[in-house]
C-alpha cells in the first residue's frame, strides 16, 4: 500500500475488498509516520494503542458485515491543542508538557465514531499563537516541501503531516489563519468552517470568539467529508450551531457555471509578485468553467490586524489565566506566597510569544483603556463583518490570496513579531466575520513553493465554498 497517496475513498475501497485490513493499515501507517517524522518533527507523539484499538473496532464492524464508517480505517492526526483522553496534550507548551486530559474533544469522539484511526498528536505554536510553528516548546516543524522553510502556523504540524503523507487527513485549529496559512505553505487543502459549525468542546481556548476546529486534506473532497463528520450541534458547546450539516462531499458537482465571484482589491496589495501572478492566473482559470469574476471592495480590511490583535489578545489573557499552577500539572514552587507561585509558574512555563500576547491583552482590557481599545476594536469588527455581508449581496463567493508570500525560511522572521503578524493579513478578516473560508492549492513558485488561494462564502454556506474549491482543484490538476 502506498501510504502517502491514500485518500478516504481509496481506504474504504481497500477495506471493503479485503485488500488490507484496518489493523494492517494502522500498523503500516504508524511505522511509516514514525520513520518519516524525523525529517519534519510534525508529530509530537504517536498513540499506537489508541490507533490499534480504533482499527480493531473497524475490522470488527467489517467482519460483522457492517459499514466501516465514513472514515473507516483512515489514518488521522490531531493538533495538540485538541484534547485526547489518556493521550498527552501539550498545546506546544512547556507548561502542559505532562498534561494528560481526562476527556476527549467532541471532534475526536466524532472522528472515532466514524471509524477514523487517530495515529498521534501534531506539533503547533504554543497555545496556537504563531504563524510559523517556531513558537513550539518542542522545536519547530520543517516544511516537507522545503525542509529549510517553515510549514506556517499555528497548525504547522497538522498541515505538514498531510503534505508529507504521514496522515490522510488531520484536524487543526484556526483563530486568525492558523489552518489556511499553513495549508497554503504546505500545498494542501485547509478549511476554517463557519463559526459554530464545529463544536469546540475539548479545544484548548485561545480566543473564544475566533477559535475554530477544521480539517486538512490532500483533496477538497476529503476535507469536505471530514467536515461533515465533525460538524453539527453539540450540547457541550453552547456556541455550536443548530444548523443541519449537509453531506458536503455529495455537493461537489463540478457545476460552477454562473457563480459570481468577488476579488477584493484591498487583498491585491502587499503581495510578492510571484504570489500575485499565481493568484491572478488562478482567478482567470475559474472563468473557464463559467464563473463570473468582478472586483469588489472590503474597505475595513486595513484595520483588521489591529482589530484582531486587540480582540484575540484580550480573550487570550482571560483564557490563559487558568494556567496558574493549581490545576494543570506545572507548578514552580519557589516563594512562599500564592502570588509568587502564580508568577513563577507562568514566568517559567509560557514562551515569549504567549507572554507578549497575555500582556497586550491584559493592557487593552485594563481600566481606563477598555473603551479606547477593546470596545473600539469590537466596533471595527462589526464594520469588517458588515463589509462581507454587503459583498455577499452581490457575489456568491470571494476569492483572494491566503498569504502575501510563500513559506519563508526558518528563523527569518522570529525576531520581528510585526512582520510575522503580517502573514495573517488576508486570513484575519474572515475569522473576525466568522464566515467559512479555506485554502486550496493554486500552483507553485519557480522555487517550487506552494501558494494557496482563499475562498470565502457567507455564514453556513460551506457547500458553495467546497463546490468552487473542487472545480478549481479540477482545473489545477488538468495542467
Amino acid at each position, binding site marked *: 500500500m502506498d501510504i502517502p497517496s491514500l485518500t478516504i475513498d481509496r481506504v474504504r475501497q481497500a477495506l471493503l475488498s479485503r485488500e488490507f485490513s484496518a489493523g494492517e493499515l494502522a500498523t503500516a501507517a504508524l511505522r511509516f509516520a514514525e520513520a518519516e517524522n524525523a525529517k519534519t518533527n510534525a508529530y509530537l507523539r504517536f498513540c499506537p494503542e489508541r490507533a490499534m484499538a480504533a482499527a480493531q473496532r473497524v475490522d470488527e464492524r467489517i467482519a460483522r458485515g457492517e459499514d466501516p464508517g465514513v472514515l473507516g480505517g483512515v489514518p488521522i492526526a490531531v493538533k495538540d491543542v485538541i484534547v485526547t483522553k489518556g493521550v498527552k496534550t501539550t498545546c506546544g507548551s512547556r507548561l502542559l508538557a505532562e498534561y494528560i486530559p*481526562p476527556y476527549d474533544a467532541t471532534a475526536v469522539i466524532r472522528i472515532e465514531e466514524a471509524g477514523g484511526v487517530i495515529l498521534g498528536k501534531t506539533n503547533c505554536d504554543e497555545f496556537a499563537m504563531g504563524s510559523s510553528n517556531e513558537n513550539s516548546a518542542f522545536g519547530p516543524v520543517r516544511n516537507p516541501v522545503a525542509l529549510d522553510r517553515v510549514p506556517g502556523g499555528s497548525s504547522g504540524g497538522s498541515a505538514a503531516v498531510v503534505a508529507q503523507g504521514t496522515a490522510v487527513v488531520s484536524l487543526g485549529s484556526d483563530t486568525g489563519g492558523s489552518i489556511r496559512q499553513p495549508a497554503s505553505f504546505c500545498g494542501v487543502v485547509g478549511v476554517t468552517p463557519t463559526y459554530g459549525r464545529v463544536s469546540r468542546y475539548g479545544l484548548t481556548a485561545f480566543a473564544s470568539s475566533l477559535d475554530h476546529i477544521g480539517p486538512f486534506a490532500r483533496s477538497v473532497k476529503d476535507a469536505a467529508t471530514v467536515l461533515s463528520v465533525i460538524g453539527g450541534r453539540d450540547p457541550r458547546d453552547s456556541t455550536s450551531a*443548530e444548523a443541519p450539516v449537509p453531506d458536503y462531499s455529495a455537493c461537489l458537482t463540478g457545476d460552477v457555471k454562473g457563480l459570481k465571484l468577488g476579488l477584493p482589491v484591498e487583498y491585491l496589495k502587499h503581495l510578492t509578485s510571484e504570489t500575485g501572478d499565481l493568484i491572478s492566473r488562478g482567478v482567470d482559470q475559474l472563468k473557464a468553467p463559467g464563473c463570473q469574476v468582478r472586483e469588489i471592495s472590503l474597505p475595513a480590511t486595513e484595520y483588521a490586524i*489591529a482589530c484582531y490583535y486587540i480582540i484575540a489578545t484580550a480573550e487570550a489573557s482571560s483564557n490563559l489565566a487558568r494556567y496558574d499552577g493549581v490545576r494543570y500539572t506545572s507548578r514552580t514552587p519557589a516563594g512562599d506566597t500564592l502570588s509568587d507561585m502564580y508568577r513563577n509558574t507562568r514566568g517559567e512555563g509560557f514562551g515569549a510569544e504567549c507572554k507578549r500576547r497575555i500582556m497586550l491583552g491584559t493592557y487593552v482590557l485594563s481600566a481606563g483603556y477598555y473603551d479606547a481599545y477593546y470596545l473600539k476594536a469590537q466596533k471595527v469588527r462589526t464594520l469588517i463583518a458588515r463589509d462581507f455581508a454587503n459583498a455577499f449581496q452581490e457575489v456568491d463567493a470571494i476569492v483572494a490570496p491566503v498569504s502575501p508570500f510563500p513559506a519563508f525560511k526558518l528563523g527569518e522572521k522570529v525576531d520581528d513579531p510585526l512582520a510575522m503578524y503580517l502573514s495573517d493579513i488576508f486570513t484575519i478578516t474572515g475569522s473576525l466575520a466568522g464566515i467559512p473560508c479555506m485554502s486550496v492549492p493554486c500552483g507553485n513558485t519557480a522555487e517550487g513553493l506552494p501558494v494557496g488561494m482563499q475562498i470565502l462564502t457567507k455564514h453556513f454556506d460551506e457547500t458553495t465554498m467546497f463546490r468552487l474549491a473542487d472545480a478549481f482543484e479540477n482545473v489545477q490538476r488538468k495542467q
Partner: protein
Amino acid sequence: MDRLNEVDTTGVEPMTQVLFEAGETATLRADVPATPLGNQAALANAPQPGAGYFKVPKVIER
C-alpha cells in the same frame, strides 16, 4: 493599534456575538443528568492534590 482611531464608529454596535441570528435555544441543552468527571479524574493533573482538593500556598493568616 492607535490606527483604529482613524475609523468612524459613530452609531456602530460592538460585535459581542459572532452569530447574531442564533436562536436563544442555541445556548440551552436538555436538562438531563450526566455523569460528572469525578474527584479523582479532576485532580489527576494537579501538581499538588491533597485530601480531595487542590492545595495552594497559604493565603489566610490565622
